[in-house]
């Protein structure tokens, strides 16, 4: 408990341990609920139907099971057998792990449906193009708004207004304008991230140390070079962090985007598995998104340290 002091620094090994625990603790909780029969397990899963109307694999309420047992006994038949079970929407960790493996290695249930990896790849391309478009327009605009007060007054009030309109609300419009395939999905990702991006980056730019701008001015930098040689390189590390956070937002809008027009990608996959009541596959899909997010974020974090060596001590 000594480690949990306010503002107390953590050594490298302890930090790694805590990092691991932040994943292992939820996993342990999930395992406990899944594997310890007397923890939760509110249903009875039928293992032997006996002479009842129940069938093997059904999950029923304990009262229903008790009634079936009583009914079978009363009529002198074989009572059904069952074991405590969780609802079908909470599969055990190993089931999800198997689903994750089979999802990537075995063909889809219905021929013609995309494989899990194809759905995932499709999602990643949608995110990529939506986010790249957003960055190409949003980053320069945000920097201009942050650096030039007149720009900020001209642009930001309207963006602030649009920002409050939820991106999904534009779904119908996007389909009308861009058709039913990938274009409206990319547009939703763009709408979801662009307006936030301009405001966040304008804010980051405004936070830039004024004294550095003044120092550059006394060294003879004009407005153009203040922007290109001082403000842009100066805010790059914070801007990079902003973009990492905004990329997370892009994944949130993805789920909405993929249900617009012809549904596709990883969220289509998850919905489809939900319809089959294959909740282990549903979990596999959700966890896949989490893993992709975690891996890209960690990769970008490390890349950032390489790109901006002066931020290391």
């Amino acid at each position: 408990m000594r480690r949990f002091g306010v503002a107390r620094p953590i050594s490298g090994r302890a930090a790694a341990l805590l990092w691991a625990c932040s994943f292992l603790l939820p996993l342990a909780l999930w395992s406990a609920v899944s594997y310890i029969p007397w923890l939760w397990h509110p249903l009875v899963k039928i293992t032997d139907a006996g002479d009842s109307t129940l069938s093997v694999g059904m999950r029923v309420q304990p009262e229903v099971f008790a009634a079936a047992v009583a009914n079978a006994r009363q009529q002198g038949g074989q009572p059904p057998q069952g074991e405590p079970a969780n609802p079908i929407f909470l599969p055990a960790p190993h089931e999800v792990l198997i689903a994750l493996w089979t999802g990537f290695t075995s063909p889809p249930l219905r021929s013609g449906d995309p494989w899990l990896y194809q759905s995932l790849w499709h999602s990643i391309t949608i995110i990529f193009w939506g986010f790249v478009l957003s960055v190409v327009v949003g980053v320069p605009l945000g920097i201009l708004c942050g650096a030039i007060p007149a720009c900020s007054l001209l642009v930001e009030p309207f963006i602030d207004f649009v920002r409050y309109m939820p991106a999904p609300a534009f779904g119908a419009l996007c389909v009308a304008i861009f058709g039913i395939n990938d274009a409206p999905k990319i547009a939703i990702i763009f709408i979801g991230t662009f307006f936030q991006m301009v405001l966040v980056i304008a804010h980051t730019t405004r936070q830039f140390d004024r004294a550095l701008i003044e120092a550059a001015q006394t060294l003879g930098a004009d407005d153009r070079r203040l922007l290109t040689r001082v403000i842009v390189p100066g805010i790059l590390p914070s801007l990079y962090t902003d973009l990492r956070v905004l990329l997370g937002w892009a994944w949130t809008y993805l789920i909405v985007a993929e249900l617009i027009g012809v549904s596709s990608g990883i969220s289509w996959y998850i919905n489809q598995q939900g319809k089959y009541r294959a909740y282990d596959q549903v979990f596999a899909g959700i966890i896949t998104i989490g893993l992709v997010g975690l891996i890209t974020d960690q990769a970008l974090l490390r890349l950032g340290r390489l790109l901006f060596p002066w931020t290391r001590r």
Partner: protein
Amino acid sequence: MDPPLTAVDPAVAARWQRLAQRPVVLEVRGLGMRYPDRAGRPVSVLHDVSFTVRRREFITVVGPSGCGKSTLIRIIAGLTRHTSGEVLLDGRPIQGPGPDRGMVFQSYSLFPWLSVLRNVMFGLEMQGKGHDEARAEALQWLSFVGLEDKAEAWPSQLSGGQSQRVAIARALAPGPRILLMDEPFAALDPHTRAALQEHLLQIWQHIDITILFITHDIDEALWLADRVFVLQPPDAEHPGGWLQEIIPVPLLVPRTREMVATPAYRQTRAYLEQLIHPPRLAPVGERLPVFKLTKAGDEVL
């Protein structure tokens, strides 16, 4: 109390005469700065400040907080607009910030994303010099402040004193007419500060530069300067910060630390001290309303 100029060393007096014949670099005439506060009432920061600075003079500006000394140097640098009067550099009115007036800030203000060398190259590149030429000149400036071995370091790897030496090299590199220094050593420990004061005097003696240096440290002001400008905050007669007095420092150049013990220095210091901290404003011996919280018998006195 009269200025202690009655018995000036003849050698010092001769030097003052020579200085007075040098061409004027900076002329400030009737300078004023006022801005409306939140209620719209005008707040005056500076009121009718006039002085001239001659080529290669070392001027320090002292004054209590609120006297507008930072505003004065920012106006000369072109970072703040004045509302009346004029500032002439070599006879021409200043137009915004420019490389003819180098500035050194208390917070160093080195660009953290550029190496030490690239920091010094910045102003040279702004003048349109090519990479190689700027690099060669910047290396010379770094060796001038004794930091050529830190050329490839990041600013975050430097100590405070080293940072300020790089900042001085960076400000000097574009060849300014005047070097403006806004309490540059205030954040340094006393030892480093003394070392940097000597560095600065050495630099000043070896290149064609005029220095205007702001400080709140009376000893620093006297030991460095040819003349000390005393600024005062607004009072009944003066609506804004005003230039109360210009005190010539009766010491020869180059300065040595022993000069601090001379009667000329001590007299001038005492005079300056009572200008800035008049006795009526600093009641000595006034007791705090403190009462006893220790146990009886637990005396340390």
